[in-house]
């Protein structure tokens, strides 16, 4: 009898919890379709597919904080981490298309599907605004024997150099791999759990270079510990005005990460328009630009149309690049 009662309690717990889990889907079927004119009539949720406190989260939170005035509703940041961004973006793509669930999307929206790690695609979203872009860069120790990209590439052809990245298949690994393809350099790719450990390993002399963004090395560069040989951007980076782009060195490559806002693809056009105008205003405000600059990140705004174009172009790049790496 005792045992029976006990398993009954366990069973009840499961039932209650399953019911809780089901609640979400039940709710999303009900009333409250955000029809144009009175949108937004309640707080908007901003899904961040990474952990609270990280770079993407900080961008999202400061944006949400500023955007609430332009939007006229508060914006709640919800962190849904997991699967290197896959869980959050999947949830964002599948969310009810009423404009009340906006997703922070990142370059992983394009790289995860091509790596076979996610089933969504960038066409599951309607882009609203591009907020930031950071290119890759080749950074070495300040006392390293190479002072130009040419010297560095030549050195890798004699002996494979160890290049640290932020994880296999992550954007800085892809950047380094694209660099190899484009220049004929030979790297021994060392994956770390994020950019910071890779930079630490470079400082300690355990790897020869890193391919992470300028933002992630700028402190050590200013302190004279590291030097950047080239940035993988279209134009020179503001924080490192003396560092040439790859294009200046005759290498046709620009690759990097970006962050932007998007809603599910079936969101009504009038709602999308309201969001685009309101978020566009915030994203182009001096306050937001200042904040992005303070975080050492690269500012790049584009509206829904421009953002869509970027997605399509880059999707092509990764569609060619990732399968050629034979990751799995």
């Amino acid at each position, binding site marked *: 009898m005792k045992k029976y009662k006990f398993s009954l309690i366990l069973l009840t717990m499961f039932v209650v919890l399953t019911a809780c*889990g089901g609640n979400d889907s039940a709710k999303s079927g009900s009333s409250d379709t955000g029809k144009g004119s009175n949108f937004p009539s309640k707080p908007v949720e901003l899904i961040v597919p990474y952990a609270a406190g990280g770079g993407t989260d900080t961008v999202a939170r*400061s944006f949400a904080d500023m955007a609430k005035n332009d939007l006229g509703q508060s914006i709640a940041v919800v962190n849904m981490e997991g699967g290197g961004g896959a869980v959050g973006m999947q949830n964002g793509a599948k969310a009810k298309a009423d404009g009340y669930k906006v997703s922070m999307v990142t370059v992983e929206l394009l790289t995860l599907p091509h790596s076979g790690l996610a089933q969504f695609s960038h066409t599951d979203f309607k882009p609203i605004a591009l907020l930031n872009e950071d290119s890759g860069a080749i950074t070495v120790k300040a006392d390293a024997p190479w002072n130009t990209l040419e010297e560095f590439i030549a050195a890798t052809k004699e002996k494979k150099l160890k290049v640290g990245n932020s994880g296999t298949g992550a954007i800085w690994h892809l950047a380094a791999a694209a660099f190899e393809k484009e220049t004929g350099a030979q790297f021994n790719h060392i994956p770390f759990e994020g950019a910071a450990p890779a930079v630490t390993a470079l400082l300690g002399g355990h790897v020869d270079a890193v391919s992470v963004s300028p933002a992630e090395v700028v402190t050590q560069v200013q302190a004279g510990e590291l030097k950047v040989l080239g940035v993988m951007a279209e134009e020179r980076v503001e924080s490192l005005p003396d560092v040439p782009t790859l294009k200046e060195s005759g290498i046709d490559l620009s690759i990097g990460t970006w962050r932007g806002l998007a809603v599910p693809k079936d969101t009504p056009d009038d709602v999308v328009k309201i969001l685009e105008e309101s978020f566009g205003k915030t994203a182009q405000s001096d306050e937001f630009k200042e904040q992005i600059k303070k975080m050492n990140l690269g500012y790049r705004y584009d509206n829904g149309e421009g953002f869509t174009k970027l997605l399509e172009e880059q999707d092509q790049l990764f569609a060619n690049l990732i399968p050629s790496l034979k990751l799995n």
Partner: protein
Amino acid sequence: MDLLLQGLGNVFQPEVILLLIGGVIIGIIIGALPGLTATMGVALFLPVTFGMDAVTGVLLLIGVYFGSIYGGSIAAILLNTPGTPASAATALDGHAMTKQGKAGKALGYAAIASGVGGLISVLMLILIAPQLAGVALNFSAPEMFGLALFGLSIISSVSGGSVLKGLIAGVFGILISTIGMDPMTSYPRFTYDQLSLLNGFSFIPVMIGLFAVSEALVIMEGEIGGGDKIKKIIANYVLPKWNELKRLWFSMIRSGFIGTIIGIIPGAGADIAAFVSYNEGKRFLKKEEKETYGKGNPKGIVSAEAANNGVTGGAMIPLLTLGIPGDAVAAILLGALVVQGIQPGPQLFATSGELVYTLFAGMIIANILMVIFGISGIRLFVKILLVPKKMLAPLILILSTIGAYAISNNIFDVFTMLVAGIIGYFMKKYGFPASPIVLALILGPMAESEFRRSLVMSEGSYSIFLERPIALGFIIIAVLSLILPLVWGKLKKNKKVNAA
């Protein structure tokens, strides 16, 4: 010194000190609740600091950070439900003391040890940070593998009664930790196309399940089975006496140093520090004391608590001097500083000396506040033991569920927690300790990825582990601590046979 005094002056501005006090109190509460970790607490308060000036904002976060590392010990000691992974080691002796009716004392030891460990680490940060920062840079993949291997060898000492059962639990933990993306190739292992499994089972829900949910189930079972089966725990608040504390200074100071050093190492945090120091605590005991270790020995509590708070100052060393964050909390603090336009790194001490010393002063005060609130709160904390069991169990379940869900707003984590809870319940029934699983979940993935990263670095040559002294040292200690007890046992047996 002048700078430090000036810093103290800055901290005692009314709004700064009030926010610091608020931060510490909130931190203690966050730490005590299952599932709400130090990282989450600090992340939650990050946006609040955007509108503040640099010092005030960062000190608020530091208050939350320090408080929450200590706060975890309260639930660990009273309810055997460690609120943060860092206090899983504290639960071993802490909860045993509660069962002996010495909850007040256990909490007192934890508060004082946390303060001492924290202060030691802040002092080391102030005095020799630049020299110590080099330690962080000497640690790369092979060294981290050595450390992880050494950490895994600790399993035998946190196993409680049966080492065999401890090892079984440890292997079970390592097996679970292989689920998720391969750390080197990102190939999804055992994920069955579940997106939520790509990063493996989330660690915190598993831990809450193993400790808190299983404890709630045990309490419920006791209640259903007649109520009196579980001995009533006396909710007293007898504080530790001075001469009792005197015996513990050495343990606290040693553990504070261990915590600081582990805090400096990037990628190793308060959880690893607490377990390593707990294990070292055992090494220094007399034979008769070893018997009580794990069964309510104050030295066990202070070893774990001084070390996990020792990490706080240690983690700030590479952050402030090199601009590299060693763990998740340090990464958020880095973000908070950068948003304020302060760039941590080698130049920080030269360009913003006053700010740095104000932070140092704030950290000292935060540690003192933590002890004050910790001790004066004991009267309040022990009241939780007076809550009727039939209310306590559902309360633990509710808090656990919220905690597990809040980690990443994913219902999958809640189911993970429940399943872990049921496994934990049966483990308790059959005498399998839960701590080895926690240790294995923290260190298993670390050992695997660092081992493989080392081999990628050396292009497949195993000599990388032999050429690097720190790595080799750790590996030798790990192997010895596995083999020595066996050899020792054999020798003793032989002696006995000879004597007979």
